[in-house]
């Protein structure tokens, strides 16, 4: 077996040092009834080329997003990732290191985490950020728990434009914790309804911008209303590129900002791994979940970085921890951070505006068709159309033309069968957009 260095002679010599006759003796504590005879009923070892062939064949049975016109968003976005990113994250020193528990020999990981936290804080307009969460949806759930801890209140409201999978994940996380979580029915243009619920027992309201329909929501009135009753505003985003074009949630008054970082550096990966971004105001920092990296000095006074504030964490606090989370999205934070470093201020803003222009152009092309109406007046790179036919049916018809033409809203929510959520990014060519327009026209005819 190519991955196993020991040979038969080694094993014999080592068993001798251990003082046992056979390997079976080392499994003596296993109850007789649970000892297996022979091999488990699965295929035996394969060569590298056999595995390569088998998995390549499986991969070939999928339609890669880049293999034709592609316009799906809905919480995961297809962007160009510079080749530098994937090269660097595959360096052994990053790829095959563990959590930086020994800071003297982990400064590479630690400094990149410190830079990542700074980038996320800057982007969201927050004071501090953690070293990442599993993904945007779990970050959203943790934010609600954190707000309830910080405010010592038990009620929270999720606005109607929050991605339904984020709401469901948050509900899942809160369901056994005596938290009164109210999730508004998902529908376009109804975010403001959440304000009617606010009272002095509310810990937080959760509002997404751009929301799941692509609408841009001015968060300022939500922040003011929340603060008026002593509650927090949790701002959510699923498309970080948008923050290059619109005001940061921090500027608009949010207290906690959570989102998905996948667009920057990570790729689609059929849903994971992704990278949850989590940022908040300074005064909330000790209630923040997840790992945090901080600056300090070494014995010679040289600047260095360590994991810190571990008294919030499960390995110290056990059942009193702020969260059970033990990992971050390590390598995905690195990918995010490298891509962000390549972009820089100027690059991110340019990328954001290209996305917006593409989406504006596509919206105009599609809305010129009969039976298509734009639902979202404001948007960044994602917008919602009302179709004259059920969107799910239309999506499937377009697949026949090799066009992945958006996302039927009904895949995410009930009662919006005629809505199609469409995304355009810098990866979409004019030819893609024309192919999409033609396919949609045929599907609707």
């Amino acid at each position, binding site marked *: 077996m190519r*991955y*196993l260095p020991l040979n038969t002679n080694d*094993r014999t010599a080592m068993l001798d*040092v251990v003082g046992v006759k056979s*390997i079976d003796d*080392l499994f003596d504590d296993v*109850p007789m009834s*649970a000892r297996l005879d022979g091999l488990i009923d*699965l*295929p035996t*070892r*394969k060569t590298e080329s056999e595995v390569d062939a088998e998995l*390549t064949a499986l*991969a070939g*049975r*999928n339609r*890669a997003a880049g293999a034709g016109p592609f316009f799906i968003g*809905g919480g995961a976005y297809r962007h160009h990732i510079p080749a530098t990113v994937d090269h*660097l994250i595959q*360096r052994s020193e990053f790829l095959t*290191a563990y959590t930086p528990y020994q800071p003297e020999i982990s400064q590479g990981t630690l400094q990149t985490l410190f830079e990542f936290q700074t980038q996320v804080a800057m982007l969201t307009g927050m004071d501090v*950020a953690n070293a990442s969460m*599993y*993904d945007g949806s779990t970050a959203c759930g943790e934010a609600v728990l954190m707000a309830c801890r910080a405010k010592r209140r038990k009620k929270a409201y999720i606005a109607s434009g929050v*991605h339904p999978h984020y709401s*469901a994940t948050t*509900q*899942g996380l809160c369901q056994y914790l005596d938290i009164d979580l109210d999730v508004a029915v998902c529908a376009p243009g109804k975010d403001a309804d959440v304000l009617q619920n606010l009272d002095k027992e509310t810990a937080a309201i959760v509002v997404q911008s751009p929301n799941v329909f692509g609408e*841009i929501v001015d968060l300022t009135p939500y922040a003011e209303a929340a603060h008026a009753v002593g509650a927090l505003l949790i701002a959510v985003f699923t498309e970080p590129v948008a923050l290059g*074009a619109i*005001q*940061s949630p921090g500027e608009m008054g949010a207290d906690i900002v959570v989102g998905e970082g996948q667009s920057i550096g990570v790729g*689609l*990966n*059929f849903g*994971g*791994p*992704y990278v949850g971004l989590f940022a908040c105001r300074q005064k909330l920092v000790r209630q923040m979940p997840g790992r945090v990296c901080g600056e*300090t000095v*070494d014995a*010679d006074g040289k600047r260095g970085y*360590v994991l*810190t504030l*571990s*008294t919030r964490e*499960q390995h110290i606090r056990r059942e009193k921890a702020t*969260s*059970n989370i*033990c990992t971050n999205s390590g*390598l995905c934070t*690195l990918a995010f951070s490298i891509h962000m*470093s*390549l972009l820089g*201020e*100027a*690059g991110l803003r*340019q990328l954001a505006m290209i996305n*917006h222009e593409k989406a504006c152009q596509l919206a105009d092309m599609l809305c010129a068709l009969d039976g298509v109406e734009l639902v979202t*007046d404001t*948007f960044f790179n994602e917008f919602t159309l009302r179709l004259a036919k059920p969107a799910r049916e239309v999506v499937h018809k377009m697949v026949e033309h090799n066009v992945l033409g958006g996302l039927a809203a009904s895949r995410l929510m009930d009662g919006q069968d005629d809505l199609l959520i469409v995304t355009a990014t810098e990866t979409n060519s004019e030819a893609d957009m024309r192919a999409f327009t033609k396919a949609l026209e045929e599907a609707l005819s």
Partner: protein
Amino acid sequence: MMSQGRPTTPHTSDAVGHETVSGNKALAQRELLIFEIGTPRRTGIDFPELKNTPSRLGGVERTQEIGLPGLSEPEVMRHYVRLSQKNYAIDLGVYPLGSCTMKHNPRLNEKMARLPGFADLHPLQPHSTVQGALELMGDLAHWILTLTGMPAVALSPKAGAHGELCGMMAIRAALDAKGADHKRRVLVPESAHGTNPATAVQCGFSIDSIPATEDGRVDMDALKAKLGDDVAGIMLTNPNTCGLFERDIIEIADLIHGVGGYFYCDGANFNALVGRVRPGDLGIDAMHLNLHKTFSTPHGGGGPGSGPTVLSDALAPYAPVPRVESQDGVWHLVENVEDADGESFGRMTAFHGQMGMFVRALSYMLSHGSDGLKQATEDAVLNANYVQAALSDVMTPAFSGTCMHEALFDDRFLKDTGVETLDFAKAMIDEGYHPMTMYFPLVVHGAMLIEPTESESKAELDRFIAVMRSLAVKAVSGEVEMFKAAPIYAPLRRLDETRAARKPVLKWTPSEG
């Protein structure tokens, strides 16, 4: 090449060890923060020109600077390559971090995960366009179920602790379905990972600790004394965090089931069992797998993990969505609770789990096969026992007898030397090794938990053992200062963690630069 026929010859001098002008030391390059080397207007990516069409951003256009630095591509490359060289890694040397399973990460797995047919798939594409991906998830589930001997698996948990949450939420849902709302107490051994109690609390349970016996296992008398009608279940790691198999595990399962509770097994150490023991034969109800430990997906400096969770027949109806199913050879995802069989407790994450890790783990499983997986398990256990046996006369094993995949030592051998576990670990850094896990499990004083994994050759282990023996001898013979000063050859010396926590500086600010 450039010496033009003037070969260098060694020259001895007193000037060795001086500080350099640059602060660099040959290959060890000093590196500033990226914010200190970039300039705002530069970018490392070329874009097409904007058309400057009217915006539809709704009046909240960004006006403030973000503050991000800009760098060209070569500057970015150099920054991260320099930083990478300040990290230890499995590919560099022995990384015997107990409980973390730092095994070799095959690069075939990386190649497979990057096939566009897996990496460039959107989670919400129509099912007809992702049949191969769904089949891969089905194949992975088949391998997991066969290896564990369990009837069901939830693939979506994003890491080990997330898998624990999945299992404990399924237990809570099952209890709720029975109306057993008096069952709120979860038994957790003192040696458990910190995630176990933290997870149980997130499911609304309270924690009751069970002490360990002198030989490092669950104290059965204490366990029996704590049983009662209010017990929701037990969370037990097996092999446990002392590296020992819980001999009474089947009796424990029977006892817990006897009071109507469920058995959560922490599967962090499943790598000691694969191919030799099926957890399903031990009476467990739920167990997460760490694909990043047992099945070699890279740790990546702290993630991403992946924590598929196997469930018994009693808990399977409560499994989260989405679920992967097939009918007549056609694969689909069940994405909504209403469409799922049973009474799913809900959703744990936006999409279907860590697909990138699924591909890598399946690539690892296919490569090893049932024979290779069993051999890997045996080699991991043999390597740990070899290290334990070879060190037991100079260090102090916490328990007598053989161990499973990791060897636990305590600090008795350092008694009265002035050297502590931490100092010993830092001295290992100077010797070119990543230290073992320190001060965990909590049940052993000054714990040192060594997990060599199956990836180390005998020759590599012999060198490691020789160094560990020498260090133990030095500690006992009074060379305290060397230990207290260590490390001196790492990129940095010991860091002031107290200062970092007392006045946290969690981001760069311009005034500082």
